[in-house]
C-alpha cells in the first residue's frame, strides 16, 4: 500500500519523556537530517578565526558545496580555495602529490601571502591511508615561512575519537609556537564568540591586571602568536576542552575548564578556582545573584503562560538550563538534543525524577522533517532549532552559549528571554544564516 509522504511520524521516533530517556543517547543513531536552522558555526567559520590565514579544501566536488557556500556567505571567499579529487587520482595513487602540488599552485597564485594555510583533508585521504605527515613535511620544507595547519573535513570519523568540532577547536591553536611564559597573560580558548566584557570571567582577569587574549579579539597573526605566552588557558565551551588540554601538553600552559553554568554554587566554585590560580580575591557573588534573580523574575513575568523549549545549539548544557529555569518557575516542556552532554548527567538524573514528563526530541532524526511544527501550544524557544521545530517566532537567537559566562551570563540570558517574549522575530530569515555572530568577513 502506498504511504503518503509527509504524514506525521509516530511520536516514539521524535519524542521521549525524561522518565524513559536513556543516557547519553536517548535516540537511535540513524540516517540523519539537517533542519534549516543554520546559526551554528562550522569548520570554515572557526578556521577563519586565525588571522591572515587561507583555507584549502581537498575533496571531491560534491563535498564542497556546504563549505564553499559558508565562505561566500561570510564574505571570506578570497580566503578560501579548493582542490578537486577525481577518480583518476584514486586510481593513479597520486593523492598525496595532489595535495602538495595543488596547495603550492594556490599559494603561488594568491594575490597575498598568507601567514598560515589550513589544509582540510577529507574522508578519502583517510580511507586510502595517505601519508599526511609526509605531505605536511614537504609543504613545510617548500614554504618555510608559512604555517600549515592540519584540518579535517572527515564526517565519516565523527563518531569515533574527537569530533570534527573538537578537532577544529584544537587545531585552531596548532600553529602556536612555544614562547617564554608570561605569568600576567591569560587566554580564553576555543570559543567562536567573544566572551562578554561584562562577564565576571573577563572582568576578573582584566581588573586584576592580567592581559587577556582571545582569538576572536585578535586582528593579526603576530597577535595570535602571542597567545603562546599566556600562563593560563581557560576553556568554557565543552568542545574546546580537548584543545585546552592539548595546549597544556604542548606549550606547558595551565588549563582551566570553566563551563557556562546555570547553578549559582557551581559558578562560585568555578570563580573560586580561577581566583586561586590568578592569586586574587574571588568576587562577591551575593549582589550578582540578586541581580540575576531580578532579571529572571522579569523574564518569568514576560513569558507568562508560554512553554519553554530549549535546544543544544543555544547552550552547551541544555538540561541544566531546563532544571534552573524550572526551579525559577518557568514551564520547560521540551528539549531538542541528539545526545545528553556528559556535564549534564546530574541535571538529566534530576529531570528523570522531578520532570518526568519533560520531552526530549532529536534534531537529526529524519522523522523530524515531517513532524508538525507549531500548533495550539505557545512556545518561547531558546535556540534556533527549538524555534524551528516548535514553529515559534518568539525565540532567543543564540548559539554556543552566546559569549556569556557567570552570573552576568545568566542575567544576559534572562534579558534575552524577556525580550523574546515581548518582541517576535522573523525566524525564517534569521535562522537560515550560517554562523551566527561570525560577522561576515570580520574575522581576518
Amino acid at each position, binding site marked *: 500500500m502506498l504511504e503518503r509522504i509527509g504524514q506525521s511520524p509516530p511520536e516514539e521516533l521524535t519524542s521521549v519523556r525524561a522518565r524513559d530517556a536513556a543516557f547519553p543517547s536517548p535516540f537511535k543513531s540513524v540516517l540523519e537530517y539537517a533542519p534549516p536552522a543554520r546559526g551554528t558555526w562550522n569548520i570554515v567559520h572557526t578556521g577563519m578565526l586565525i588571522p591572515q590565514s587561507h583555507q584549502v579544501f581537498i575533496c571531491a566536488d560534491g563535498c564542497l558545496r556546504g563549505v564553499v557556500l559558508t565562505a561566500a556567505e561570510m564574505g571570506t571567499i578570497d580566503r578560501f580555495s579548493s582542490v578537486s579529487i577525481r577518480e583518476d587520482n584514486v586510481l593513479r*595513487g597520486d593523492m598525496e602529490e595532489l595535495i602538495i602540488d595543488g596547495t603550492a599552485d594556490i599559494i603561488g597564485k594568491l594575490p597575498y601571502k598568507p601567514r598560515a594555510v589550513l589544509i582540510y583533508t577529507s574522508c578519502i585521504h583517510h580511507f586510502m*591511508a595517505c601519508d599526511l605527515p*609526509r605531505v605536511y613535511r614537504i609543504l613545510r620544507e617548500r614554504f618555510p615561512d608559512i604555517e600549515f595547519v592540519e584540518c579535517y573535513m572527515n564526517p565519516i570519523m565523527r563518531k*569515533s575519537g574527537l569530533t570534527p568540532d573538537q578537532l577544529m577547536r584544537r587545531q585552531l591553536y596548532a600553529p602556536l609556537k612555544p614562547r617564554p611564559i608570561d605569568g600576567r597573560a591569560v587566554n580564553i580558548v576555543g570559543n567562536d564568540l567573544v566572551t562578554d566584557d561584562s562577564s565576571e570571567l573577563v572582568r576578573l582577569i582584566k581588573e586584576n591586571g592580567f592581559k587577556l587574549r582571545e582569538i576572536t579579539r585578535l586582528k593579526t597573526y603576530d597577535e595570535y602568536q602571542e597567545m603562546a605566552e599566556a600562563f593560563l588557558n581557560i576553556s568554557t565551551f565543552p568542545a574546546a576542552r580537548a584543545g585546552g588540554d592539548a595546549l597544556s601538553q604542548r606549550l606547558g600552559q595551565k588549563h582551566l575548564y570553566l563551563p557556562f553554568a546555570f547553578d549559582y554554587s557551581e559558578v562560585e566554585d568555578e570563580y573560586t578556582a580561577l581566583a586561586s590560580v590568578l592569586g586574587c580575591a574571588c568576587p562577591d557573588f551575593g549582589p550578582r545573584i540578586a541581580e540575576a534573580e531580578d532579571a529572571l523574575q522579569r523574564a518569568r513575568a514576560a513569558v507568562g503562560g508560554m512553554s519553554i523549549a530549549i535546544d543544544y545549539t543555544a547552550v552547551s548544557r541544555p538540561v541544566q538550563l531546563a532544571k534552573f529555569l524550572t526551579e525559577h518557575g518557568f514551564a520547560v516542556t521540551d528539549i531538542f538534543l541528539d545526545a545528553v552532554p556528559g556535564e549534564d548527567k546530574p541535571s538529566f538524573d534530576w529531570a528523570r525524577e522531578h520532570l518526568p514528563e519533560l520531552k526530549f526530541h532529536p534534531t537529526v532524526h529524519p522523522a523530524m522533517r515531517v513532524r508538525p511544527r507549531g500548533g495550539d501550544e505557545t512556545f518561547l524557544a531558546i535556540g534556533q532549532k527549538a524555534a524551528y521545530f516548535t514553529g515559534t517566532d518568539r525565540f532567543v537567537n543564540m548559539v554556543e552559549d552566546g559569549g556569556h559566562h557567570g552570573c552576568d551570563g545568566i542575567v544576559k540570558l534572562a534579558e534575552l528571554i524577556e525580550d523574546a517574549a515581548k518582541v517576535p522575530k522573523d525566524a525564517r530569515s534569521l535562522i537560515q544564516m550560517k554562523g551566527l555572530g561570525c560577522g561576515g568577513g570580520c574575522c581576518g
Partner: protein
Amino acid sequence: MIQLAVYGKGGIGKSTTVSNISAALADAGVKVMQIGCDPKADSTSALLHGRKIETVIDLIQKRGRDIPLEDIAFEGYKGVICVEAGGPTPGLGCAGRAITAVLELLKEKGAYERFAPDVIIYDVLGDVVCGGFSVPMRAGYAQKVFIITSGENMAIHAGANIAVAVENFKDRGYATLGGIILNRRNVKNEDEKVAELASDIKTGVVGVLDRSDTVQDAEELFETVIEAFPDSKMAGEYRALAKSVMEKCGMEVNI
C-alpha cells in the same frame, strides 16, 4: 626500538616464520611485540598456544576507540606481546583501512611506550596492494622490510611487487629492504630462482628455511618449533634466521 615488517605471498609461511623469530628472540631475552596485520588474525596463534584473541578491529566495532591496552595486547610465549589487527568481513570492507586504523590506535594509546619492546615485528598480509598495506613500512614504523618467498613463481612475483613498493617509497624515508627469507618448498631450481630475485631487487638472502615436517608437528601442538622442539634442526634454522634478521637491523643478539 627496532621495528621490522615481514611481507610475502599468502600461505607462504609468514606467521609461522615470524612467530618462530619472536620466540627465538624471546629465548634470548629480547622483548618482542608481534603485530599480526591480517584479517585471518592467526599470526600470533602459536605464541598463544592456539588461544584466539579478540582482534583490535572487532573491539573497535564493539566498543569504539575507548579500549584499554590490556584488552588489545596479550602476553604470549616468554612475554612476547601479541596483537592481532584483524580486518573486515571477507568480501566486504577494506583490509587496508583496518591496518591503518589499528596502527593509528596503537600509537594513540601509547602502546609502544607502555610495553617498551626492544623489537616490533609486523606480520603483514600478502602483497602491498593498496596504501593501507604500506603503512607498516612508513616513517615511524618499520625500518626494514623482509620478504618471505619460496621458489614458486607466484611467491616470487609477489616478492618482486613488494620490492617495487619499497623502491617507490625510497625517497620518503620509509623502510628499506632488509633481505629475502627463503622458505623452501623444494620446487625445481628453487635456490637459483630466489637468488635471481634477490639480484634483481638488489638485496640478499638473509636466511634459508628447509621444508620440514617438524613445522607441521609443532603447529599441531599449537606451539612454535622453538618451544615444541627446541633441539630440532628446524629450531636451529629459525634461531640462525632470527640472528641474521636482527643483524640486518643493526642489533646483535646472542642466540
